[in-house]
């Protein structure tokens, strides 16, 4: 018998975007409040996993054609590059820098190079967890 999953699919369409927005919020909040790259990455993964549960792995692969192994490698490279940038300026490895910028929409914002490192962490977390879930899910 074919099960009817209209409810699940409809709810997923709405909830996924809420989860993704929350993931972005948590990610950027990390410097001053609880949150950061790791939990942001996990939340993003949970949104994608919800899509997979509702629509199946193959459909999600079609709408998000991402090679997650490459994604985690890229994240790792971003993290290493942020940390290694300090070598160019001949200060100890991992020395970060920050400054205040006048951004068009946000007004005066402090931007810190730790954010770039967190982007790396975020991508690695998404890449690794998705690789795990995909490989186990596709295993016959």
């Amino acid at each position: 018998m074919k099960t009817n999953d209209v409810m699940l699919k409809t709810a997923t369409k709405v909830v996924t975007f809420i989860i993704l927005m929350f993931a972005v919020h948590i990610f950027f909040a990390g410097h001053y409040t609880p949150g950061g790259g790791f939990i942001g990455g996990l939340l993003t993964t949970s949104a994608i996993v919800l899509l997979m549960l509702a629509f199946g792995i193959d459909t999600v692969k079609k709408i998000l054609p991402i090679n997650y192994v490459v994604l985690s490698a890229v994240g790792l490279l971003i993290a290493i590059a942020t940390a290694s940038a300090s070598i160019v300026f001949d200060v100890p490895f991992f020395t970060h820098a920050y400054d205040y910028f006048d951004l068009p929409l946000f007004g005066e914002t402090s931007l810190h190079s730790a954010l770039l490192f967190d982007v790396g962490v975020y991508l690695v977390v998404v890449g690794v967890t998705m690789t795990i879930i995909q490989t186990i899910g596709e295993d016959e």
Partner: protein
Amino acid sequence: MSNLLLFPILIPLIVATVLMLFPNKIKMQRMIALIGTIATLAASFFLIYKVFNDGIQVVTLGSWPAPFGISMVSDLFSALLVATTSLIVLFVILYSFPTIGLKREQSFYYPAVLFLMTGVNGAFTTGDIFNLFVFVEVLLMASYMLISHGGQRQQLRESIKYLLVNIISSALFVASVALLYSVTGTLNMADLAVKIPQIEDTGLLTVIAVMFLVVFGFKAAIFPLYFWLPGSYHAPPMPILALFGALLTKVGVYAIMRTYTLFFTMNIGFTHELLAIIAILTILAGCVGALAYFDVKKIIIYNIIIAVGVILFGVSQMNEAGVTGSILYLIHDMMIKAALFFLVGIVAVIFGTSNLRQMGGLMKTYPLLGWTYLVAAFGIAGIPPLSGFPGKLLIVQGGFEGPQFWGSIVILATSLIVLLSAVRIFIYAFWGEPVETKPLKKSAYRAMLIPSIILVAITVVFGVGAELFMPFIMDATEVLLNPSLYIEAVLKE
């Protein structure tokens, strides 16, 4: 170039990450992995030069002052080990080309080797006890992957054991660090060395010292904790085995040497005597195994355990001769174990088995292999001009000068057993009636033999020219025996 000491960690890390991007382009993988290891080797040699001329190199990450940031410290001891590691990984990669097989190369083999190298080099360089834990995990993760890489039946069975043992010992590591932190309130090794003598409760510190001995003993395979090693190391293919045999246990040995000379010196009468007794028992246990088996891999694997005992016995004496001997023997042992596994690997490929009883008569068909193996076997036993001799001589001298003179006698006696076990492979595999062998392509044979011969040649140079290397080794010993040099370098006001 204050960041020079990070290069041997960073180069393999970056190269490994880049290699993850295109797993199927084998030629590129090989080329880039080779270039990366050569660059690491060059950086580590430059680091030795720099440390030898300018003293201990320290970087505290993120420009934080010393006890608050993570310090990376490179004294001659760690710089020498980093250089040896880089050298061995270079040869392992060269030896992997003809042996590891296309399928394995396509599934992230070279990235795993380079991540392992990152972890080992990091563990040798770090000056922070928790960072040491992290780097140990980095190398363990890579080793989990390598031990199960290829997914043969035996490998899967043994990797479960290996995983279980290492997860338990890692959990114990975290518990020990937590206990140490609750007592001292710091994680920086130099700061620990300052704080620990100020604490009156030496009983608790002795307990922590013994806990660390158990933790690192699991990694280094000392006497009651070595049970996982023979089975686990028997499973993976030869280049991975050479990598493990040469590097992994040595990280545990290094960690024991570092902690027991730098900060656990408050109750030497108990902790170091315990270390000496365990070291001697380790040697005896290894000897029993080395004699018991008729399997070429197993014989060399048990020789790893013997060497761990010999090195730790030298450290436990805490005198100049003993520690100098340990450093010399540690470097020698890393190289000679890799070389022996390479050679034994060729023998096993030629016969298609690692069972000694099914071998014989290789001397006529492969004389060069035979003579190279004989030199390596004499090297491991410590026959005078070769590389095992100066280290063992100094360790024995240290034992006679120190409190455990009987240990030196055991080491001298067991050297004969080591020689017997290594030469037995020679007698069975190279003498006697020729046995039918598997056809081996000339080019593949040459590609396997050349890195092995070069590595054996390097160990011979290391033994014959020991006098040349002595200034470096003596400098390394000086830092180990005078923790104040280390502390001043890190915590410079």
